[in-house]
């Protein structure tokens, strides 16, 4: 990824978020320049998805790990945030129970399950947003990479992981609201969620976190660690004969990627107002891979661009011709794979010398 594309991406994300907020808050609703709050929330959602895309690109583009279950980490971060927002509702719920969320009262539960304790505390909830995806990724990655599971087998296992979580979270007994998930949030850190200023604040916060994640990812892939990682991606066995342990490199970047996805999920939930098990659905993870492929694998900025553009297309398309969207998405993926192997970023930088180390091999090794 070139420095130019990184700068443009940071500028676009931050500048765009601030501009939209100003146009929402400072311009009167009667003006043609006014941006409706609906749009602010929508763009906030796109930027949360962009964090998921960035996470996918980090492992797929730079470590050759094609994860088809990355939305699981996104959803877990989202649930951790959702649990905090649920506890914030307090007595304003339908049943007016100060401790138990509505769905627990409905299920006739008498006390809060142990794993819900602490989520009334914002700091604890934020810690869990980072920790839960990280620990799951650590355990999963340690087992998979140590056993040298890679390629399509690893992709299938990641898919199974998210599907298993989908089924588990559907169950009412799990204590996460089952089918309906967590919703009806009132406020966050004591600030009402529906207020326009909160909406704009969330959008700008998402933009800031996305930029921080971009900078961390960029540092990681351009460091000597990143060079080893790219070497592992293309010729894993060779790195072993040089004395590197590829499993440790993969594990680090895998956990980092899960954390970025988790933070994305945590920012997504307050802006969308709901988190339910459908976020674990395998289709979501596959869609995230398409965003990255469209934007350009192994470019980081391309992942952000791809996520925003494809989701914008989805919003427009599902409004006009909802039944055709999935066909359009599938066609897009096939066309990009066939005609634009470098994605949009590859098209934009065609003809210009690209930094050698970040050009991904057409096929992941092994």
């Amino acid at each position: 990824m070139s420095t130019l594309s990184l700068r443009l991406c940071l500028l676009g994300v931050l500048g765009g978020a601030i501009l939209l907020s100003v146009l929402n808050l400072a311009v009167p609703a009667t003006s043609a320049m006014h941006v409706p709050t609906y749009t602010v929330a929508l763009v906030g959602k796109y930027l949360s998805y962009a964090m998921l895309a960035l996470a996918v690109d980090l492992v797929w583009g730079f470590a050759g790990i094609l994860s088809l279950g990355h939305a699981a980490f996104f959803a877990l971060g989202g649930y951790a945030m959702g649990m905090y927002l649920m506890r914030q509702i307090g007595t304003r719920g339908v049943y007016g129970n100060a401790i138990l969320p509505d769905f627990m009262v409905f299920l006739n539960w008498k006390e809060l399950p142990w794993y819900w304790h602490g989520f009334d505390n914002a700091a604890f909830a934020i810690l869990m947003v980072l920790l839960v995806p990280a620990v799951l990724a650590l355990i999963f990655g340690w087992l998979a990479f140590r056993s040298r599971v890679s390629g399509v087998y690893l992709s299938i296992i990641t898919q199974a992981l998210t599907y298993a979580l989908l089924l588990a979270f559907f169950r009412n007994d799990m204590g996460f609201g089952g089918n309906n998930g967590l919703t009806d949030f009132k406020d966050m850190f004591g600030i009402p969620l529906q207020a326009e200023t909160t909406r704009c604040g969330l959008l700008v916060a998402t933009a800031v976190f996305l930029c921080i994640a971009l900078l961390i990812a960029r540092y990681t892939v351009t460091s000597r660690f990143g060079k080893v990682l790219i070497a592992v991606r293309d010729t894993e066995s060779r790195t072993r004969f040089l004395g590197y342990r590829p499993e440790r490199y993969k594990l680090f970047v895998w956990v980092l990627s899960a954390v970025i996805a988790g933070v994305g999920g945590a920012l997504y939930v307050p802006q969308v107002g709901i988190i339910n098990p459908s976020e674990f659905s395998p289709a979501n993870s596959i869609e995230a891979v398409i965003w990255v492929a469209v934007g350009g694998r192994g470019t980081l900025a391309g992942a952000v661009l791809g996520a925003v553009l494809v989701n914008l297309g989805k919003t427009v398309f599902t409004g006009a011709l909802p039944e055709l969207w999935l066909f359009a998405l599938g066609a897009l993926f096939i066309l990009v794979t066939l005609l634009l192997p470098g994605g949009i970023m590859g098209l934009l930088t065609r003809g210009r010398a690209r930094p050698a180390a970040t050009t991904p091999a057409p096929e992941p090794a092994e």
Partner: protein
Amino acid sequence: MTDHADTLLYLDGVTVSFDGFRALNALSLVLERGEMRAVIGPNGAGKTTMMDVITGKTRPDTGRVEFGQGTDLTRMDEPAIAALGIGRKFQKPTVFEPHTVWDNLLLALAGDRRPRFTLWARETDEERDRIREILNTIRLAEHRDRRAGDLSHGQKQWLEIGMLLAQEPQLLLVDEPVAGMTDAETEQTAELLREINRPRSVLVVEHDMACVRALGVKVTVLHEGSVLSEGSIDHVSADPRVIEVYLGR
């Protein structure tokens, strides 16, 4: 354990079977410190399997593989054996294609291999000096900023040899270094190998008899997974058994 203090590599009765096929059959081999040895043999003689066993890629069914003062290599994996000082060059040149020549050497330089180090590592002056020195040895100084994937076949072979040098191994395993090279490149490569050999031991697997002759070292002939003959190139070329299975066709 051997009694010789100057034995670097010691293989004794090493047997490896794949689905009943004996790739190595009670193979024994002793390599001295600072020695260069050429290993020849027809296809399927077990040359590559022998390298796999030494570098930890394949575990032998039976037999002993010892390095230096009795370090048992059969209990170690590839990164541990590499860290011990055994470098390997593959038959097909395997360099890190998207990286520059410089970065390839940087990644190969002896040093801390843990992520917690490489995440924060900065190039030091000693590292730069060492890389420049190697670039001169392998004659790739003008190509330092080129993508390794854009190098010619012969240049990739040299880069890989350079990466081995950067590892500062005590023992170098080199698999068919002149395969696919021009005559001029073959000669240069043989010279390069002799240069490398000065402070360290080298085990060269080679098909090309011209190259083996140019190296002028002791030769071990493998056949069906064990040693058929051993000695100077003239000695083994005159051995009737060698002529029968390999040279005389």
